[in-house]
């Protein structure tokens, strides 16, 4: 056996390599079948980071289609509800530089809003109910509708279809329970002209506490 190999080194190497490639090829094929991943995990991960308002401001019908589009190479700055935080998170995930929010798709709003139906004006047309992507509007034909505020994502989609314009987007008031401290002004602004307009008296008082 060893003599045979020694006498035909090229042939032996060829046989060994072909044998190895068959073995590993089989192994890889088996692994590909056995540990098959359903769907595209990157889409899932991007979808996790999107704010799920389902508002369609990105031009896609919902957050998941946009996530799929991003996975296929779309730009990541089309989501105004998520704002810069979401862009940063996706940029971090995809390991790309984080761009500014694309103003074409809307502006990032500071306060969260929820839809509110002025109920005495509602004619019960059900158009908003059909428009709501998360089924947060309650009502029936020719009966008054109302918004379940806890379920509302503030996507705006119900405002447009209303024929009597009885839907308002109201800002959600901050309560003591969800109040939080704000980040203090950046240190290092020792030169008066540098910090012009940055150190407010209120921030100064808080520091004292």
């Amino acid at each position, binding site marked *: 056996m060893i003599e045979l190999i020694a006498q035909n080194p090229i042939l032996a190497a060829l046989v060994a390599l072909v044998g190895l490639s068959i073995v590993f090829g089989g192994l890889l094929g088996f692994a590909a079948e056995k540990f098959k991943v359903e769907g595209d995990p990157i889409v899932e991960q991007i979808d996790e980071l999107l704010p799920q308002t389902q508002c369609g401001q990105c031009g896609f019908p919902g957050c*998941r289609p946009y996530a799929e589009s991003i996975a296929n190479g779309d730009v990541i700055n089309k989501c105004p509800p998520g704002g810069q935080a979401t862009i940063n998170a996706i940029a971090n995930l995809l390991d790309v530089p984080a761009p500014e929010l694309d103003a074409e798709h809307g502006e990032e709003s500071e306060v969260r809003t929820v839809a509110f139906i002025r109920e005495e004006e509602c004619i019960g047309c059900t158009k908003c109910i059909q428009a709501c*992507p*998360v089924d947060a509007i309650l009502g029936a034909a020719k009966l008054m509708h109302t918004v379940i505020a806890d379920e509302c994502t503030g996507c705006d989609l119900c405002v447009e279809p209303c024929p009597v314009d009885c839907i308002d987007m109201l800002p959600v008031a901050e309560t003591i329970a969800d*109040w939080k401290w704000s*980040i203090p002004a950046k240190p290092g*602004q020792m030169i008066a002209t540098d910090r012009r307009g940055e150190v407010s008296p209120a921030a100064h*008082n808080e*520091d004292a506490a």
Partner: protein
Amino acid sequence: MSRTWVTPGGVHPPENKHQSVTQPIGQLPIPEKLIIPLSQHIGAPATPCVEIGQQVLKGQVIAEATGMVSIPMHAPSSGTISAIEHRPIAHASGMLAPCIEITTDGADTWIEHQGISDYEHISPRKLIEMVGNAGISGMGGAGFPSAVKLNPGRQRPIDTLIVNATECEPYITADDSAIRERAGEIVEGIKILSAILDHPHHIMIGIEDNKPEAIEALAPHVEGTGISVVVFPTKYPSGGEKQLIYILTGKELPAGKLPADEGMVCINIGTTYAIKRAIIDGEPLISRVTTVTGDAVGIQRNYDTLIGTPVSHLLSHNQFDEQAGGRVVMGGPMMGFTLPSADVPIVKTTNCILAPSYSEIPDDEPAQPCIRCGMCAEACPVSLLPQQLFWYAQAQEHDRLEAHNLFDCIECGACSYVCPSNIPLVQYYRAAKGEIRQAREEKVKSDHARERFEFHKERIEQAEREKEAKRVARREATQQAKADHLAATANGATNAPATAAPSGAVPSSSAADIIAAAQARAAAKQASPEDQRAKLERTIASAEQRLKVAEEKLAEAINSDTGKQDKLSAAVENTRQKLEQSKSKLAELTE
């Protein structure tokens, strides 16, 4: 003396405790208005059970506990409920919260109440219930409902009871003076706690060595009781729960664990006094010892203050000089916060009102850049890396902050205190914690929204599928009807007279006939001229047949019955018209 352990880090700020202990605990006149916030504790706010205009007696329940982790509120003095509304409360945000306002009558009439002296013979469950009903929450800082803390529904028995008399924060002497004057009652309270917790092996009172008078006052009362007073060197912050547990037992509580998980209960010494009053005297928690101190007040001392007393009442009775210092801080200089207004009431956790003069606690100097000196890391009592946390907080890198155990930070302020660049580090951590909490909540919300969206999509698709199925069914039914009709007309062509005869008098009345007619029309439009001619000829033949039958029937009707005459004559006319139509069409076609 038992062994003590030394915590890492810590600072030694000027204590400034001597000013407020020169006089015994004082009493203030009853304020005109008492404002009782419904949420003075961790957990659900209490629910008001009184109405505006209702007379209440001292100690009467005015708001009931809402659920398990909550406490009731009691009227601190007798009077009339004058408002139930949102008022400014002691909160760093300066926001309003629901409060009950009592206009006092000055009589201070107690509601009928009764305590029990032989608590040894009463079940712990009943004692805990009494503690809960007395509205007692932790009086040291966080305000966790005591009844929940003492609840025996835990996996492991309590073998160590730690009473926290550290009071490590500068200026505050509320616990110190309470121990000096009420040591007997406090020890009684500890004995009640011991009974509730089924007599733990170790009962320790942890106290810093800067309170020799208090230690002396406790000594005669603890003799022979098994309670040990453990004195340890003064250092800030030794009074944090985890810090004190480490100092007294050498055990480090793991992150996210409660003392009860390790078989320990840690309770503030002021709370033990409140528990004694609740069990032995039957009095709910309606007052507490509060230190009024700082150079901007003329009299610096401790008061037995009614809960709900406006801070302005305390200040005006202590010669507050607004010129000397504009700020009023609730709590100490390290962990307290500047009050948004002096109208806010004293709550169950208010141990100190500090009105410092500007020279005493000057305004913070502007922050300078971090020079990475590392003093904050040396001062941190939890062995965190404050400057790393500072960088990550600025960059809002939440993952890294959590990886660096931001949530183990007790916000003691030691890092800010030592920072040579005056960076308000704790504020960054508080802000970052708030942001992370908010992000977590938003995550839960967005997951929920996604679920609802998926369900919505699924529902719409389902409806679409059902519609499609119906459409298919309808199409199939039509094709079936068409096929049936074609078969029928094929038969009808061969023996038209036979089939036409029975229905001849009432042409095209049923739905099937309508469909058939429509199809026939459609077919006539599309069919070739030969087919059309053949069809028309067939139609003419069958119509002639029908006309004949109808005329016969009409004749019959005229002879026998006059009722159907009109109808039948109309039908005959109709059939004749159709026949004419067909004939003219045939003529058209042949041309």
